[in-house]
């Protein structure tokens, strides 16, 4: 069975140890985590955990089932049909061409979000694979620092 990438979205009770239950489950059973994001669901006592992972079909099925078994887990959404976005922030030296980089960021759903004395910061929010392309392209402008945000996803 070949490995495939999958984004799993988990609705959990927003309580203190819930993230360690999830990350511990992945570590303890040897499942991969590519990215993991957590944020509270507005106007509720729930949190949304989004995990990008990979594994063969048997492993992915086990991940879903094992997540379900955790007592604070309400719902595990695992679909191929998800809209996925990831954000990335990149810091460039001030010497680089602001106009070029602004155009580049624009092409990937972003722009320049901060300009300082010695550096400026570009931001992009796009599909994970496009974010990867953007980071490759940004490499030409001597980026000083790159911070990725992890994938968030929603069912289509």
């Amino acid at each position, binding site marked *: 069975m070949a490995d495939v990438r999958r984004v799993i979205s988990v609705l959990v009770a927003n309580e*203190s140890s819930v993230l360690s239950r999830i990350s*511990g489950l992945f570590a303890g059973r040897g499942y991969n985590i590519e990215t993991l994001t957590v944020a509270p669901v507005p106007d509720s006592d729930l949190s949304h955990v989004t995990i990008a992972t990979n594994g063969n079909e048997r492993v992915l099925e*086990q991940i879903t089932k094992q997540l379900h078994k955790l*007592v604070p887990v309400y719902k595990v959404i695992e679909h191929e049909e998800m809209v996925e976005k990831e954000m990335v922030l990149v810091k460039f030296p001030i010497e680089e061409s602001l106009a070029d980089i602004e155009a580049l960021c624009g092409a990937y759903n972003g722009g320049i979000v901060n300009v300082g004395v010695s550096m400026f910061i570009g931001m992009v929010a796009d599909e994970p694979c496009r974010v990867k392309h953007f980071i490759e392209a940004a490499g030409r402008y001597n980026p000083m620092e790159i911070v990725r945000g992890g994938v968030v996803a929603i069912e289509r």
Partner: protein
Amino acid sequence: MKMNGAQMVCEALIAEGVKTVFGYPGGAIMNVYDEIYKQDGFEHILNRHEQASVHAADGYARATGDVGVAMVTSGPGFTNAVTGLATAYMDSIPMVVISGQVPLSLIGTDGFQEIDAVGISRPCTKHNYLVRELSDLPRILKEAFHIARSGRPGPVLVDIPKDITAEFGDFVYPEEVKIASYKPTIKGNKRQIEKAIDAIVKAKKPLLYIGGGVVLSNASDLVRKIAEMGQIPAVETLMARGVMGHSNPLLQGMLGMHGNYSSNMAMSETDLIISLGARFDDRVTGKLSEFAKYADIIHVDIDPANIGKLVDVDYPIVGDVKEVLDKMIAGLEGRVKPERYSDWREVLERYDNLHPQSYVDTDDVIKPQWVIERMGELVGEQAIITSDVGQHQMWAAQHYPFDRPRQWINSGGLGTMGFGFPAALGAKKAFPDKTVINVTGDGSILMNVQELVTAAEYKIPVINVILNNHFLGMVRQWQTFFYEERYSETDLTFQPNYKALAEACHGIGYDVTTKAEFDAALKDAIEKDKVAFINVQVARFENVLPMVPAAGALYNMMLPKKGDSKKENSGKEAK
């Protein structure tokens, strides 16, 4: 009613109908112990080690089906309890363990006897709680019992900071549990059950594969019924011994690494596995690619994660075995034809005649298998048998005539040496009128030997039959077979005087070197009604057979030689 957190703990335990708590006090749990002193709703047994407290609560739970309860202090008290939690977790045993924790204000400061109990126990509990507010305590205790006993059962830890046990508040024990995110599937999908019924009716060589889940779900009567109505052969896992009853002709025996020939062959040749509360453990399946190659699989399990975890399943049914069997039996009524499987039954009978579960007895030295069989003859149905881990455990599972579920109590999933003696204490507390015997080895018994004192003090007269081979026998067996007889650190020739040890702790000891002495010792121990060690010198190099070497195919068994197999079976000793 206003009361402090410690009293709430006691009141909750009483409300849950708890009769016996096994535990050990210490700083962080002292407030609760102060309330235990004042109440008379339940008895507290002071084990001499927290691991033993948890195993005793576990043994109590296995013997009764009720939730076992243990109580420990923070830090080392809790860490000592971890093996007990893991043991119960692996075998899905309902249990609530209450641990003290340092006061809330000290959490995270490396306070004296502070350890992250919730963090450490996360992978070996079904669920766990750190109580952060007194007002949560009644709800959490209620949930803990509910989670422990519902769905796939398991141990739950409730970690309570000391200041919360001292604080006063209102106590109302909730009547119901509301956990929106926790809803085990009990019923079993009707359509899937119908498909499974069709598959059984159409099969030529169906096989009931019975696991510990049947015991947990109290479904043994239904399993016997479905087997009877279709005359369907059955195999039991280590955890399911007693479900069919040893005299049932449909029972082939135990399958797996030390399963008997006809059981393992039945699994290898069946065309339809009806898996009931079993989980295709590696000690059962052997090499997966060779496992039950010709079979379709019906898999009934309350835990969806067990289904499709290791083998592909044709008829998955998530639900309580009992609920599912009820419907299956109704659906099979009039449709299942016992004659249809008569050839299959005949084949299995021939397999069993070809290689029955056997050993070669002798009068020169006691064979461990003889001891087990003799116990069966002497106490049989009326005893509860616990065991530790090793060869003695396998011999007990192979040779004891188990008649009913919950008669056989052992650590299957984790394989915890030191489990048997404290578990026996728990079982004996639950059933004081039954003879409770722990079958153990000279290695395992020392891992919770301090319980002699507990048993003597509280007059819990369990009998430990030590099959003494002066070896860590099971490891020695692997060294014989797979490590060219390099007996690295398994020789236990240096031993305590077990008889004197028992007596030093106010118990009674027997040294046994002949069969007659064994009979006399067991009889005397039962009469004296005291905690006992029966130290039986057994053949040193006896091996547990049949054996499927790890990672081998289930049908490739090392078998005992027929006729004079003494040499084969006793290895070096014969040289």
